[in-house]
């Protein structure tokens, strides 16, 4: 008897809370944008970059009067860059009735989440996922403000073949959608240019000991290594390589290019080559924006900051331009118009990819700074 009373009580309280929450959101009348990415976990740094850019855009748009008189509101969600969590986050977006998503970050989590957004008619713009597979499925609601691995891989591959000219190249990847994808692109490019790939192998995410792999690379006389994946693994590989006396140069995609690679690898990160979107914070037109970030004590040079900003801005501009809040109409509007953003003039192909995007090669330094080696 007592148990039943308790249950009823819980149900009543639950309903009361639900109603309160419901009321709360009605009063504000704001346009909600879900910012989804890793805010915890090993690659949370990238999530920070994306959130930093998106929040700045929201803040500036609101300061300028919002969108058609309505304020934008950020709803941050964490997917830890795990496919399972990404689906949970996507469902949460659906359940909260949010119509626009800026995210996700890792291609591996964007892929399953985008299925849900497409089905539910939610507009998604990823400022970071570069795997071509995401936009290959003929979806209507999925866009990017970043380039593709099929653009980034060849840039890296051509540089390796033309400038580094290794005699025995090793390509290592982390078996994830992003890492393996880009490693495959690099392999295709270098092999077509006659480079000898002696090793193409995957490592496990979260693996800590790479000594066996390093010994193997040493024994195969590998003189250049391309790594497809994220910085926690590459950082350890670099560090353990130098400790084992394996001194060949390494190169990686934008997933390795953040400060933490230098924290993990220390001196071993000196001379690492990284392909990144060009440094938008160095573009003169963005000087005011960079200063605004600086005023908040934030560093806008990360690869996903400006794409995050651009994603929010494109959503806002589309709402204004199309005069509608219907995500489907927005998607239509985005395909037929172009936008002036901090990442340059943005125009979309039918599949949601950018018409143009440039990757640049940087030389990474032990103090976590970088210098461009190509333009």
């Amino acid at each position, binding site marked *: 008897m007592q148990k039943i009373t308790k249950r009823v009580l819980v149900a009543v309280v639950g309903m009361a809370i639900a109603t309160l929450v419901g009321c709360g959101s009605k009063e504000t009348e704001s346009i909600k944008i879900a910012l989804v990415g890793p*805010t915890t*976990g090993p690659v949370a740094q990238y999530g920070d970059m994306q959130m930093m850019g998106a929040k700045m855009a929201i803040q500036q748009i609101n300061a300028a009067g919002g969108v058609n008189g309505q304020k934008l509101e950020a709803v941050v969600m964490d997917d830890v860059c795990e496919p399972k969590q990404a689906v949970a986050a996507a469902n949460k977006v659906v359940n909260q009735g949010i119509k626009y998503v800026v995210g996700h970050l890792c291609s591996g989590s964007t892929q399953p989440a985008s299925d849900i957004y497409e089905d539910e008619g939610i507009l998604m713009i990823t400022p970071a996922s570069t795997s071509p597979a995401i936009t290959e499925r003929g979806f209507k609601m999925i866009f990017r403000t970043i380039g593709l691995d099929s653009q980034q891989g060849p840039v890296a591959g051509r540089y390796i073949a033309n400038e580094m000219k290794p005699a025995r190249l090793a390509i290592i990847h982390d078996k994830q959608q992003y890492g393996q994808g880009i490693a495959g692109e690099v392999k295709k490019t270098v092999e077509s240019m006659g480079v000898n790939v002696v090793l193409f192998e995957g*490592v*496990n995410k*979260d693996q*800590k000991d790479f*000594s*066996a792999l390093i*010994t193997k690379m040493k024994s195969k006389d590998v003189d250049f290594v391309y790594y497809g994946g994220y910085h926690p693994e590459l950082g350890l590989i670099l560090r353990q390589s130098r400790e084992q006396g394996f001194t060949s140069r390494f190169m990686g995609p934008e997933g390795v290019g953040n400060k*933490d690679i230098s924290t993990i690898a220390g001196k071993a990160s000196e001379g690492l080559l990284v392909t990144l979107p060009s440094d938008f914070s160095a573009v003169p037109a963005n000087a005011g924006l960079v200063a605004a970030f600086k005023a908040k004590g934030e560093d806008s040079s990360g690869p996903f900051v400006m794409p995050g900003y651009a994603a929010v801005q494109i959503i806002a501009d589309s709402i204004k331009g199309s005069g509608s809040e219907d995500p489907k109409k927005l998607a239509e509007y985005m395909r037929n118009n172009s936008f002036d953003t901090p990442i340059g003039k943005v125009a979309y192909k039918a599949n949601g990819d950018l018409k143009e995007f440039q990757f640049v090669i940087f030389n990474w330094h032990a103090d976590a700074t970088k210098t461009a080696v190509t333009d």
Partner: protein
Amino acid sequence: MSDVFLQFTQQLINGLTLGSIYALIAIGYTMVYGIIGMINFAHGEIYMIGAYISVIVIAALGLIGITTLPLVLMITLLATILVTSAYGWTVERIAYRPLRGGNRLVPLISAIGMSIFLQNYIQLSQGARDVATQPLISGGWQFGDADGFQIYLSYMQVIIAVVTVIFMTLLTLFIHKTRMGRASRAVSEDRKMANLLGINTDQVISMTFVIGAALAAVAGLLVGMYYGVVNAYIGFLAGLKAFTAAVLGGIGSIPGAMLGGLLLGITESFTSAYLSTEYKDVVAFGLLVLVLLVRPTGLLGKPDIEKV
């Protein structure tokens, strides 16, 4: 010497280093199982806490200006073992002892809950990011040379092997030569009987958790120093591997855990070397299945029909 032999030796060194760490963690699983027949799923997290504490202590010593290497190592070792053991003791006291005597599955669920709690607790208190430290001890010896390939044996690898051997010897002596060790063997054989004969079984069980945690702390410290990166989730994979090592060697058997750990490390290393890194877990777990098919109690385990 040919370079093939040198490469083989190098891979053996790599495997033994990795295996030593697995073995240290595996002891904790096997001792607890041997005594109360329960798998302590929170043990991987105890190891993770050990790694965190060592990193914190090393950083703190650096801040107050103690940089003499032997002194730093001694203080860190002691502090890590002390604090981590306290965690091991507390976990047993809070999550397992109140449930003792009930259904066997209840403490198992409690252990999983504890594991999730500890992960989140560390993540909240220490931040969700990887914590990296610069190597305290770097460098090593190089020897042998064939076709430009040299064997590289780092000081850290030697330290890991030596420390593991020291602690394994201490543990073996403790189990076989001391009163408390004898009591723990008795409890492991028959808890009820040992209790009737006047052994304080609760105390023995607490001590088992403390010893398991102390060895996990040593493993955590070594890993913190060797790999230099810790996060709140390193316990999961390491725990899984160490548990595998314990089962491979025969769960409940201490020499079995040591053997299982080393075997697992070497298997992973050789698979990476001669097959592919992608398959190292496949081969390691395949080996486990194979051994269990032939010897269901593991390599050195004794058949025990009573325990689950």
